[in-house]
């Protein structure tokens, strides 16, 4: 009896705990397996795309170095050839004069062209190596190529917006328009909104929503500017038209802000 009890006492807890222990081990085992499989998949994916990433970095680095060399060569070559002087002569009366010298612009353009070329080639190599090795579809890769174009659109749009804003501001001030800053800001935001819409469209983000929002914003800004100019400068426009009709055929180099000469005297700047 004692033996039976002893066996029961020994075996019962075992029987009671054994299934619990067996369940825990199974969960941990499953979790471990799942984690191992996940890590394996991640590592497999990494190994699959590693050559592509490496190719991307190598392509960008090599083309950046080539770009630096070409840029330096162009800079020295054009300086020796006095390219800036030539451009200054050919564009002596031109309206467009860049803020930096033509040589510097060409050298920088060559450098960034090589960087861009490296990026394109790198991304292509990355895309190709990934496509051959990948099993899962990924939507990020096309964005890489589009992102490069979008960045360039953004930079160009920002530069154009700043240039146009300054042109409008100075022109409006010299035309004696009181709302010069407002006009300049309007033009700047018009171009920036257009740029933002182009960037989003290029990245295929938003779809119809962006087009709709852009249309509303662009139209709103144009309407605001039209109303502001139309209502605010009604008198100015009519005066300008009247004076234009009166002075048709005359050539007087007098700015809007210049003095109006009295009888018997003239103010001439040239």
């Amino acid at each position: 009896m004692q033996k039976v009890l002893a066996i029961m006492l020994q075996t019962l807890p075992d029987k009671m705990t054994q299934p619990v222990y067996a369940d825990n081990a199974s969960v941990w085992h499953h979790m471990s397996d799942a984690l191992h499989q996940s890590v394996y998949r991640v590592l497999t994916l990494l190994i699959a795309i590693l050559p592509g990433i490496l190719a991307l970095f190598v392509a960008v680095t090599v083309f950046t170095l080539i770009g630096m060399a070409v840029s330096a060569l162009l800079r020295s070559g054009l300086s020796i050839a006095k390219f800036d002087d030539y451009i200054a002569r050919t564009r002596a009366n031109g309206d467009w004069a860049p803020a930096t010298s033509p040589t510097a612009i060409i050298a920088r353009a060559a450098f960034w062209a090589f960087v861009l070329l490296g990026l394109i080639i790198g991304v292509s190599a990355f895309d190709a190596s990934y496509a051959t090795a990948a099993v899962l579809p990924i939507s990020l890769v096309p964005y890489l190529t589009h992102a490069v174009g979008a960045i360039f659109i953004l930079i160009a749009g920002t530069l154009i917006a700043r240039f146009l804003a300054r042109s409008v501001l100075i022109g409006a001030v010299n035309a004696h328009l009181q709302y010069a800053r407002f006009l300049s800001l309007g033009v700047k935001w018009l171009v920036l909104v257009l740029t933002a819409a182009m960037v989003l469209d290029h990245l295929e983000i938003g779809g119809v929503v962006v087009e709709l929002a852009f249309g509303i914003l662009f139209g709103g800004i144009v309407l605001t500017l039209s109303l502001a100019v139309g209502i605010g400068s009604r008198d100015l426009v009519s005066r300008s038209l009247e004076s234009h009709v009166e002075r048709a055929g005359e050539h007087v180099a007098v700015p809007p802000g210049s003095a109006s000469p009295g009888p018997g005297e003239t103010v001439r700047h040239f």
Partner: protein
Amino acid sequence: MATADSISEISASSTPHGPGLLVLLANMPAEDLQDVLANLTTSYPAEGLIVATTDVVPTESWPNLRVIPIPETPASWTLTAADFLNAYHLASENNARAILILGPGAASLRPSALRDLGDAVIAPTTDLALPCYDLPPHVGLVNSAILYPLTRALFPSRARFPLAIDLGLSLRMAERLAVAAQRFTTVNQESALIWPNNEATVAGFVVNEFAVGRREIPQPTETDINAILASVTGSLFADIDAKAAFWQRPRQVPPFRPPAPQAPAPDTAPDIGPMLDSFHLAYANLQEIWSLVLPPHSLLGIKRLSAASAASFRMPDALWARIVFDFLLAYRLRTINRGHLLGALIPLYLAWVASHFNITASGTDPERHIETVAATFEAEKPYLVSRWRWPDRFNP
């Protein structure tokens, strides 16, 4: 107008021992042309002048003139690169010893003025004969504010009208100007401006100035002052930039020239209100752009100026000189787009004009004030040289 021959080819084949003076006339109405020819005949009665003109001239009416027809050039209110190139080619082909170029409106020049300019360059003592016009006080203000003071400070010459439209040129001066002009004409910039005084000074040629009295100054064909000011000032800035190695060295300025007699100022002063409005509008809007070009000290001066009333509006000469120098430096450094830069200068120029009118209305002789401004530019030249050499140095 530019011919295909290069300057070197012509200079090799030409002989400088010609009979006399070649007179190149700009396009002008028929009655003006008759007046100019009459004045030339009065000035040089016994000498065989060679007159080059685009207009048809009956030779029997002017027996002592040898008239050469030349192809028509684009109408311009001032002398252009094509004119200088043409003048040298014609002088070389006709073996002339010197050239007299007469711009539009030359009919208003006296015969004695033509004689002075022509004789000066026929004699071997002068290479460039510049006229000093007697203009009304409110005419040629860009010249008085920028062109004359800047030229005088950097190229030691007291030529009052560096962009004169009547010139006497020796053959070697004409050749130098033609070489300068050819750099523009080869790239189809026939209407580019050439600065004869600067070229002559750099070459070490003799420049003399002659009082020619009153003259009718032609109006620019362009009506927009913004475009003309940008074109003229930009051209001068570019020329100064190209000749930086010359003017940075200290040189002796010619002796003081007493101001030319001027017509008395009109009783009624011009209304400076619109100019001040333009300046105040620019002060409210263009500070961001000015701050890229001007140092804090100049900005402070402009701020003080903006607070001045119309009656007490006076721009200090030193402030104006530094503003022009800073814009010149920004033009060289391309701190901002050059079109924007020259556009931003216009309101400041109008402020100077308003200040000039106020000063002259208070009894100061306009010509004396302009001479004072030019002298201030000379005094401030070290500032420009310093900033030109070390543009990044701290400049309060």
